[in-house]
């Protein structure tokens, strides 16, 4: 297309078509990142009306803060456990939805629901269901075990609850993409394996898993990037508490910047988060391209 156009005209058309999207996106994402890096070298506090160059002070003081170390630690644990659970359960659900059964179409539709509900709403619903006095799940646990469990007051259980909500919300998405991968595996492979006497588990291990591995790896890594940045789930379920036990990096940036107006420190922590995301993205891209070319 446009091969017989003059070079200048071709560039002009390209600029008109691509320009607006690129300009809008870069000016509201790349420029802010540079601005964030710049601010991270300043003591910039909106409440105290200061703007003073302090070099790497924000970075070092963050790392000397035990709370921040704990927050980074919990972020990594939260993401790792969530994504592994989502991949395993997503694979189970995808296999379930790939089997023929009555009502499959409606179940596949229901599967999308957790993913399209506003995160802040599902956060509040889970908070209500886990309410120490009147919660639905609290009641079920009491009936089954005889124990009155205070899910969101105990820090260990609060962390577990946050992971469960995250898994509830994101597993369907994993399942959809994994299901599409399963559907691209030729049926004959399974038939042949069946004739050779392979059982369900062997077929899964030798056909399904190898065929889905590229999807699993890339999907897992992209999901880490999306989930690491989400603060709605924490605003909804725990607001970072009890104490700061369920605070992740992104939520602490929100607190530093938007509640305590310490924009310098918020920016420095943002840069740390960006570094983590950059590392994960690089791995994701490397694996994505590798699988793209080999498959």
């Amino acid at each position, binding site marked *: 297309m446009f091969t017989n156009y003059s070079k200048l005209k071709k560039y002009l058309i390209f600029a008109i078509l*691509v320009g*607006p999207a690129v300009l809008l996106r870069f000016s509201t994402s790349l420029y802010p990142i540079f601005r964030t890096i710049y601010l991270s070298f300043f003591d910039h506090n909106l409440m105290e009306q200061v703007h003073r160059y302090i070099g790497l002070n924000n970075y070092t003081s963050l790392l000397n803060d035990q709370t921040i170390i704990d927050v980074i630690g919990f972020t990594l644990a939260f993401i790792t456990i969530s994504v592994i659970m989502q991949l395993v359960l997503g694979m189970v659900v995808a296999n379930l939805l790939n089997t023929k059964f009555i009502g499959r179409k409606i179940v596949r539709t229901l599967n999308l629901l957790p993913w*399209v509900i506003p995160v802040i709403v599902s956060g509040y619903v889970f908070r*209500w269901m886990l309410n120490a006095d009147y919660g639905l799940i609290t009641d079920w646990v009491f*009936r089954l075990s005889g124990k009155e469990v205070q899910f969101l007051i105990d820090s260990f259980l609060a962390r577990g609850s946050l992971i469960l909500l995250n898994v509830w919300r994101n597993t369907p998405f994993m399942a959809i993409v994994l299901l599409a991968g399963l559907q691209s595996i030729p049926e004959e492979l399974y038939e042949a394996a069946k004739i050779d006497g392979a059982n369900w588990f062997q077929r899964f291990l030798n056909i399904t898993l190898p065929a889905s591995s590229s*999807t699993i790896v*890339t999907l897992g890594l992209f999901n880490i990037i999306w989930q690491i940045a989400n603060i709605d789930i924490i605003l909804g379920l725990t607001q970072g508490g009890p104490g700061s036990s369920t605070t992740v990096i992104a939520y602490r940036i929100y607190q530093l910047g938007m509640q305590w107006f310490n924009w310098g420190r918020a920016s420095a922590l943002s840069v740390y988060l960006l570094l983590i*995301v950059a590392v994960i993205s690089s791995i994701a891209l490397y694996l994505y391209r590798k699988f793209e070319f080999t498959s």
Partner: protein
Amino acid sequence: MKSQKTRNKILLYFGISVFVFIILVPIYWLFLTALTPRTQLFSVPPNYFPDFTFDNFINLASQVPFLSYLTNSMIFSVGAVLVSVILSFLAAYGFARIEIPGSNILLFALVLTMAIPEIVTVVPLFQILRNFNMIDTIRGLILVMGSVLIPFSVWVLVTFVKRVPVEIEEAAIVDGATLPQVLFYIVIPAMKPSLVTVTIINFINAWNNLLYPLVFSSSIKAKTLTVSITEIFQARTPYGRPWELISTLGVTMVLPMIILVFVAQKGIVSGLTSGSLD
């Protein structure tokens, strides 16, 4: 052999039941709470069969400017969808059809901005919007949200433009058609399903967005439903948090999404899977 088959069938339906149960319980509890009278809400054990009432909806409307927030959410979501889909479609067409040195790298960089956490850009965006007098305006929100949706939209749409056979467009150009005519009469009709898909997914994302209106809106002028529910959550009442009002507002936010999913299930799935498997 036959008994094993029956056993597998039972296991399958058991698994599906458990799965559907886990998905539906929170949604069911949200709707039930919204329909429960306040006086029956705080009981131990929970009231599994309350008297149904629509009073909570009336109370909600009398306590928050619900219609204004609903309108804001609508304008915000539709605006962000229009900005992102129109700009992304044009860009995707340019990337797919025009060979220019470096255009692949530009596309790659554009898609890569998808990985930038929104929270990282919020402070500078606040300053930008303030400089342009767009704090607490819906048009400011539309601009930043439209921008967030661009990388995903371009990513999906580029693959779909490439699936449209280029020969028809070339023939039309030879016959003297202008580029806008080609886009309107050939490309857009051919890409209708994928444009609808991207529109729906972007609408869901914008409708559910909390961070931007939470940070950039301060009055009824630009607050959305997602902000409103956080404010109701903060409200202190003598009997604790107003869970019946939180749930009622939650229902009004969730219901349009549920309807969308049932209407457009196929489109959503094709959009979500096209990028990752193509």
